[in-house]
C-alpha cells in the first residue's frame, strides 16, 4: 500500500512536471508568435514609449532573447521560473502587479466553495434519481428519469446560468426580500451575482447549477450499479437471511454502489472545472476558473501557468484520492 502510494505520488509529480513545462512552452510560443504581452501593462489606446516597454519586460523576465525566436523552448526562463516557484515566489501579474500567491489565496476558497455545493447537488440528485430508476427498471419512471437527466445534460450549463441570471434571479430576489428582508438568508441566496459579503450564501445557487454537469452520467452509473447490486447473489443471500429491505439497501447495496460514485466524481471533477470557468464568469465569482480564463485572454503567462498547474494538481490529486478510496471501500483491492 505504502509503496503504491509513493509510486502514484511520483507519477503524479512527473505528470505535473510535464504539464508545467508544456504550459511554459505554450506561453513562450504564444509570446514568440503573437508579440509581447508587456504592452498590456500600459493598457488603453496608446503606444508606450519603447524605453518604458523595455523596463516592463525586464521587470517580468520577458526580456530573454529566446522570446524572439519562434520555437525556442526558453529553457533558461523555465528554470528560473521553477526556482522561483520552489522558493515560494509565484510572481506577480502584468496587469496591476499583483502577487499571484495572494490572488490564489482569494480565488481557491471561492472555487472550493462552489465545488462543495455542486458535488453535494450532483451526488444527492443522482443518488435519488439513480436509485429510483433502478427500482422501477424498465418502467415509465425509469424512462422518464433517463430522458430528463439526458435532457438536463444536453442543456449547456452556462445557458442555464444565463437564464437564471437574466430571467429568474431578479424577481426571485425581490420576492424573497419582500418577505424575509434584504439581510436575511433568503434575501441573499437568490442574488444574481456573487457577493463577497455573503461568500457562502450567494454561491449556493451557482453551485447547484454546476452540479447538473454530468447528471446523466452519474445517474446512469448509479442506476447501473444499483441494478447490479440489487440483482446480485449477495443481495439474494441477504434476503434469504430474512433481512428487511431497508437494511439490505443500507448495508448491502449502498456501500457497494459507492464505488462507481467515487469513480464518477473523480471523472466529472475535470468537467466541473470547465463548468467553473463559465459559472464564475457569469455569476461574477472571483475564482480559479475565471482567473484562468482572464489570464489566458490577457496573455498573463505566469498566471496561466500557475492557475492551470493548480487545476491540474487538483485533478491529479482527486484521482489519487479516488484510487485510495477504492481500497478503503473495497477490501478486494490491495495495491501492491
Amino acid at each position, binding site marked *: 500500500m505504502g509503496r503504491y502510494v509513493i509510486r502514484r505520488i511520483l507519477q503524479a509529480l512527473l505528470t505535473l512536471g510535464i504539464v508545467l513545462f508544456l504550459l511554459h512552452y505554450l506561453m513562450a510560443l504564444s509570446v514568440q508568435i503573437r508579440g509581447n504581452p508587456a504592452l498590456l501593462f500600459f493598457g488603453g489606446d496608446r503606444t508606450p514609449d519603447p524605453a518604458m516597454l523595455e523596463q516592463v519586460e525586464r521587470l517580468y523576465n520577458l526580456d530573454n532573447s529566446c522570446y524572439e525566436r519562434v520555437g525556442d523552448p526558453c529553457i533558461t526562463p523555465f528554470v528560473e521560473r521553477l526556482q522561483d516557484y520552489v522558493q515560494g515566489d509565484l510572481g506577480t501579474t502584468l496587469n496591476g502587479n*499583483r502577487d499571484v500567491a495572494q490572488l490564489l489565496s482569494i480565488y481557491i476558497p471561492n472555487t472550493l466553495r462552489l465545488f462543495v455545493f455542486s458535488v453535494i447537488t450532483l451526488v444527492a440528485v443522482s443518488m435519488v434519481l439513480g436509485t429510483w430508476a433502478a427500482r422501477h427498471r424498465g418502467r415509465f419512471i425509469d424512462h422518464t428519469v433517463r430522458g430528463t437527466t439526458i435532457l438536463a445534460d444536453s442543456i449547456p450549463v452556462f445557458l442555464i446560468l444565463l437564464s437564471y441570471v437574466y430571467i429568474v434571479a*431578479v424577481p426571485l430576489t425581490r420576492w424573497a426580500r419582500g418577505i424575509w428582508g434584504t439581510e436575511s*438568508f433568503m434575501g441573499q441566496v437568490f442574488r444574481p*451575482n456573487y457577493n463577497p459579503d455573503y461568500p*457562502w450564501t450567494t454561491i449556493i445557487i451557482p453551485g447547484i447549477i454546476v452540479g447538473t454537469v454530468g447528471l446523466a452520467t452519474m445517474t446512469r452509473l448509479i442506476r447501473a450499479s444499483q441494478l447490479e447490486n440489487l440483482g446480485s447473489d449477495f443481495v439474494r443471500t441477504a434476503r434469504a437471511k430474512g433481512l428487511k429491505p431497508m437494511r439490505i439497501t443500507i448495508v448491502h447495496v449502498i456501500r457497494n454502489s459507492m464505488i462507481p460514485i467515487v469513480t464518477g466524481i473523480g471523472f466529472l471533477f475535470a468537467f466541473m472545472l470547465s463548468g467553473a470557468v463559465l459559472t464564475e*464568469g457569469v455569476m461574477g465569482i472571483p475564482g480559479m476558473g*475565471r482567473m484562468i480564463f482572464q489570464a489566458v485572454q490577457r496573455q498573463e503567462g505566469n498566471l496561466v501557468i500557475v492557475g492551470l498547474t493548480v487545476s491540474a494538481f487538483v485533478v491529479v490529486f482527486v484521482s489519487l484520492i479516488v484510487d485510495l478510496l477504492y481500497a478503503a471501500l473495497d477490501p478486494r483491492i490491495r495495491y501492491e
Partner: protein
Amino acid sequence: MRRMRMTVAAIAAAGLAAATAACAGDEGDVDGEGDGGGVINMQIGEVRSLIPGGSGESEGYRIIKNVYDGLVYYDIETGEPENLVAEEITSPDNQTWTIKIKDGLTFHNGEPVNADAFIRSWDRTAYAPNALPLNYFFGTFEGYAEMNPDPLPEDQWADPEVPEYPEVATTHLSGVTAVDDLTIEVKLTAPFIGFPTMLGYEAFYPVAEECLADLEACEATPIGNGPFMFEEPYDPQAGGTAVVWEDYAGDKPKIDAVEWHVYLEGDDCWADFLTGDIDICSPSAADYQSAMSDTELAERVIQQPDPSILMLAFPLYDEKFQDVNVRRAISMAIDREGVLNVVGPERFTPLDEWVPESILGGGTNSCGEYCTYDPEAAQELLAQAGGWPEGEPLKIWVNDAADNLDIFRAIGDSISESLGITYELVPMEWTEFLTARENHQLDGPFRSGWGPDYNLNENYLEPIYGGGASVNDQGWENEAYNAKIAEAGAAATLDEAVALYAEAEAILAEDMPSVPVFGENFNFFYTERLDNVEVHPIYAGPRGDCELRTVTITE
C-alpha cells in the same frame, strides 16, 4: 456524513454574515432613514492602482478623483478647469507656468499639501524605472528626457536583441521647482496654452510622504486629500468602502460613505441594480431597451454624450486609399443610423466631426455632408475615383474587444450594401492589433477609438494625427495642419488656442484620414433612493458613475 456537516456550517456561516451585516447596518445607517447620509453602492471594474500616476484607466481614476483633490476640477457644465487646490495658475508665455497652492490644506494623515507634495508625485511618475502608466504626461516637461533616456548604442548591448538603457541618474524633473512652500514653477519644452486643463488629471495629483514610504500599504489604503477616505484597505477583487473625511476643507459630500463593488471584465451590474444592490448602472443594449419601456425606470436615467469617439481610419500608406474620394465614398456608404439600430440605439450618436461637442472647442460639424449616409453619392464618388478593384474584398481591421466586432460588422454590412463590394472583417487581439497599426501593416480601414486625457480639442487632434506620416497610425501628413497645431500651442489665450485648433480640425476634414463614426453616450440608470445625480462627462467610467461630491440619498 462529513458533507452534511459542511452544509450546516455553510448555512450557519451565512446566517452569521447576515447577522453582522445587519448590526453594521444599524450603526452605519445603511438603511438611511431620512436626513441625507447613507451609503451609496457603486459598481467598479478592476482597479490597477490607487496612487496617482499608477492607474491610467477609468476605474482607478473614479476612486482616485474622490479620494484625492487635484489642482483643478473640471466644471460639470462647461468642462472648464476651475481651481480646487490651486489658488491661481498663471503664465507669461504659456511655457513657464506658476502654480500657487491654497494655504492650510492637508492630507488625510495630517501632512500638509504643499509644493513638495506635488513635486514628489510628479517625480515618481516621470521616473522611467518606476514604469508607471501615466509617465507620458510629463513628456512636455523640461527634464523629462533625462529621466527617460534613449537606449544605449546597439554595440553596447550584451545580447544583440535586447536593448539596454543607461542608468537614470536623476530622480527629479528639472523643469519643476518649488519657488516657496506653496508655489510651484513648471517649465515646459514648448509653449502649451492648455496646460491648466491637464492639471485636473490623476497624473498631477499630490502624494503624501507617508505614502511613498510604504507604497504597498498606500496602494491598499490611499492617503489622499479629497473628500473621501479609506479606513479599511481596498481590495481590488472585492472592493471596499470609503467614508467622508470629517476634516475636509471644501464642500463636504451629502452622503456618509461609498461602497465600491467590483465587477470584473464580463460581469454585469444590471441584475444587481434591479435588485437594488447597486445604485447606478449602465445596461447592455438589450437591457436598455427593456429598461426604457419600463416607465418608472425610464425616469431615472441620465443620458448625455460621453467624450469618447469611434472612428474608421484609413491606411494612407496603402495605394487603394490615396484618393480622398474613396475615403469620402466609404464614409458616405456607412448608414450610421442603421448601425446604431444594430448595436443598440442611444448608446451612441452619429458623429460628423473629429472633436465631440462636449469637449472644449468641439461641435464644429466639420465633416458635414461627407459623414451623412447617401449611397448614391457614395457610389458616384467611388466611380470618380476609378472604382474599387474588382473581386478584392475590403478588409476591415479591428481588435476583438467588447462589441467592436458587432459594430464593425454592421459598418461592413452597410458599406457592402451601399457600394456593392464585399468586405472581410479581420479581428485581431489587442496587442497584435496595436503593433500592426503602428507599424503600418494594415491594408484596409481599421478601428480607431479615442478617449480624452483632458478637456481640450487639441487632445483629439495632435496625439492622433500629428507627428508626421511615419509616426501616426494613418500615415498622414499635412504641413498646413502641423503649422496650425504649432501656432495654436503658442497662442496667447486659451480661447484663441481653441479657435486655432478648430481650424486645424477643418484642415483635417479636407483630407479625411479617418472617418468619424460615433460619439458615445452615457446611459446611466440610478435607483430611486438617489437624488441630485450628476454625471461628469469626463472620466465617468463606462459602466456607471456619478458625482459622489454632490449626490444625495433620499429614502
